[in-house]
């Protein structure tokens, strides 16, 4: 991986970081956790939800942001992407077009543009993000990005659009976007997965595609919801002793209840970990130089701020040197 200078730049020292992965792996909670870490470290941080479902807002216990960024906490801002508004803003800023108002329902025009050339919709997303980087109102922009299938076309959209649109303003605009997007000291991508077959496969495939089809820097891989190790080796041996019907009988007597469900529960947990282990190993083995963080499956933290804080702590513990420049 090409790195500028001898010191490697921290993930959160960059200006634009995309977090992607298969649906259901916890992209939004990882994004929120990174956002909270960065904000706490004094970085003015903007989180942008691309598939605006409001998940990040719910995680951070705040109102869902609109296209205009809203303050969620100290140093932390939230916006949701809206391509139609991005187009409106683009027309206003770059074309200085009062005509926009006279265009009639912009929505219809937009529908046409987006439908006829999907690259246009993607470039509007990427364009808005790059524009915010250029404006430098924030130290860091974290993108809760689209899931695996579409992120590559988004990241590659400046290239794709050049193929379609050979002239015109869009074409001229692409160059500066590429400068931001394809500069590893400014932009990076984190791919998240959970330890199961499809999410790990998709993450590895995606990492490879990002490498081959885009010039965007792949910053790190995250395996989320990893079942923590329940027993040490000797503990597991002792647990096996406990499971012998004779010891279970003794135990039942001591507690005057049936310990069966408890033992089954532990077995289930052991089995889950055993089942997930090969996928974690495969990802680690295929990751090469790309750093990997394993985040434990969190219990009893719900799906709000408590989860975000816990994930943040886990990330900081696992990745302290990776997140910030020493």
């Amino acid at each position, binding site marked *: 991986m090409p790195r500028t200078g001898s010191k490697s730049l921290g993930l959160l020292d960059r200006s634009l970081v995309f977090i992607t992965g298969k649906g259901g792996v916890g992209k939004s909670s990882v994004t929120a956790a990174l956002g909270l870490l960065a904000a706490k470290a004094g970085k003015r941080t903007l989180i942008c939800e691309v598939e605006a479902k409001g998940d990040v807002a719910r995680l951070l216990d705040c109102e869902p942001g609109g296209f205009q960024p809203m303050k969620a906490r100290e140093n932390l801002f939230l916006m949701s992407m809206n391509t139609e508004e991005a187009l409106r803003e683009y027309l206003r800023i770059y074309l200085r077009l009062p005509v926009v108002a006279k265009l009639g329902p912009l929505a219809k*025009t937009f529908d*046409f543009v987006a439908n006829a050339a999907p690259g246009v919709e993607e470039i509007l997303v990427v364009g808005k993000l790059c524009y915010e980087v250029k404006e430098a109102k924030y130290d860091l922009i974290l993108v809760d990005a689209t899931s695996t299938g579409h992120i590559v076309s988004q990241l590659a959209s400046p290239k794709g659009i050049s193929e379609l649109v050979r*002239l015109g303003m869009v074409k001229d605009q692409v160059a500066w976007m590429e400068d931001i997007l394809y500069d590893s000291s400014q932009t990076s991508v984190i791919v998240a997965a959970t330890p199961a077959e499809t999410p790990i496969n998709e993450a590895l495939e995606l990492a490879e595609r990002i490498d081959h089809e885009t010039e965007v820097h792949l910053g790190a891989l995250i395996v989320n919801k990893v079942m923590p190790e329940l027993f040490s080796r000797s503990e597991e041996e002792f647990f096996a002793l406990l499971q012998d019907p004779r010891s279970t009988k003794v135990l039942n007597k001591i507690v005057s209840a049936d310990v069966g469900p408890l033992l089954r529960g532990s077995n289930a947990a052991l089995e889950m970990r055993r089942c997930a282990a090969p996928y974690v190993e495969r990802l680690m083995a295929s990751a090469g130089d790309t750093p990997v963080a394993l985040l434990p499956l969190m219990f009893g933290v719900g799906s709000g701020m408590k989860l975000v804080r816990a994930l943040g702590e886990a990330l900081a513990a696992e990745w302290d040197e990776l997140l910030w420049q020493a």
Partner: protein
Amino acid sequence: MAGVETLIDHSRIIIVAGPGGVGKTTVAAALGLSAADLTGKKVLVITVDPAKRLADSLGLVGLTSKGSQVSPGDLDKAMGHKVEGRLFVAMLDAKSSWDELVNRHAPDAVTRRKILSNPIYRNISSRFVQSHDYIAMETLYELYRSGEYDLIVVDTPPSRHAIDFLDAPSKMADFFSSKLLRWLTMPARNRLLMGMFKPFYQVADKILGAQFLSDVAEFFLLFESMYSGFVDRAKSVAGILENSETSFVVVASPEPVPMTEAEFFISALDARHLRLGQMVVNRTLPGYFRDPAAILLANKVQDDYEKVAKELLQKGASLDLIKKSEFSPARLEALAERVLLEVADSFLNFSGVAVEQADEISKLAIDEELITLVPHLNFDVSDLNSLGKVAAYLATGTEAPTM
């Protein structure tokens, strides 16, 4: 709970929808297997992007939209008995399905060739995500009309919102019949009207460049020759959703986000008068995690683990297992304490999750008969045998005592 038997009996099309990452493809494949087993029908499963090992085991390598049969011997082995029905699987190939559609509707060879090589068309057919939703419906329609299969199970493409799938045909029809597109192709036909739309062209020209606009214009002029066929077609395709023999199966995992999305989808089905055949809640934790007596015990052990450990070693001293164990007495006691505490902690952790899951499930505002729970499985569904187990859960619809 009745499981999926009634659903399978009454449907010719089953559309499996739901948020990403909940095991939609697995449920679709298991439904197909279950249907072939329970009804003896000829069943086709159309999937979009199966996990590689599942695809391999189904013989899905390099398949197109034509179905290929899963070996009957393998089916028997997976279900543990003779399976009367036949199971076929097909993988959706958006690009070639679009090309087929053009081949069917293009008036002549020249138009066909021009469309297929138009850059806008190529972009739409291969990359446009919504177009995958549409083409999945289109493929379904074609297969349904062919009458070749008794039952078709469709695994819907992953999209931003499951709901997109429902609207794909009407959106496609709207798209091709929109006034805006007529305007676009107008310059070629009626220059007089140009003035009215001058601002639009100015902007479009400026933003996108003239070459792009002319590609777009060409695309729509070409498509206009197929226009009526295409719009009629999209309407017929939309029609099969409303067919009385079409049912929807909504899949979710029992966590707040996927469940909310699933509920939203269910109410959208309702609003469109479409039929919810079954809601499958995948990866539910087994019921014993919610057993009040067990939870009470886990709490007790958590509090008294030192005492319980001591007693265990005393009362269990006669047990060969402990006598023969290689650990020293002090080490043994420490181990007993740790293990008992871990067992209790872990149980309570999972209990918490199981209670949350049950809570999510109880919030579902649908008939209990329509809910099927599939347990969190301790294996990857990566071959026909494990798929057979999922099929069995779907068929019985009972909360299975696994793990």
